[in-house]
């Protein structure tokens, strides 16, 4: 089970790298990241982690049948 969690978080890690690379890097005229690309990757990762945390909370609520705060 521990091994499974480890594997899963490594897969999440790899998919986050791919996503931020795809969304932030489009020029291949240099072989190092420029300031703008680096800043974009930072924001992408932070946003993704916050997003994932929020999804996790909602997901847990729905699985426990708890009422949600957002009215329809």
């Amino acid at each position, binding site marked *: 089970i521990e091994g499974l969690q480890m594997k899963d978080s490594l897969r999440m890690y790899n998919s986050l790298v791919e996503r931020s690379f795809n969304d932030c890097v489009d020029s291949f005229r240099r072989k190092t990241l420029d300031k703008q690309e680096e800043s974009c990757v930072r924001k992408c990762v932070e946003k993704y982690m916050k*997003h994932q945390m929020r999804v996790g909370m909602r997901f847990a609520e729905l699985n426990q049948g708890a009422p949600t705060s957002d009215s329809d």
Partner: protein
Amino acid sequence: MASGKLPTEAEKEQIFGMAQTEMEYRVELFNRLTATCFNKCIEKRYKESELHLGENSCIDRCVSKYMQVNNLVGQLLQTPPM
């Protein structure tokens, strides 16, 4: 499993296998849900590192709708069409 009896080794293994499959299913559901709602709700220009109000409420509704689709598909696959 017969009631009032302790599970045999084989039964224990089967139960453990089912629990693991169930967990893998939930992990995959969560991962797909997370990626899908990120695509649907989050601005890709990444100007800020905070989620703004619109993104937050979009996420809440996206999770809710995704789980409804998940339940609906579950119902549909149990009752074969026609």
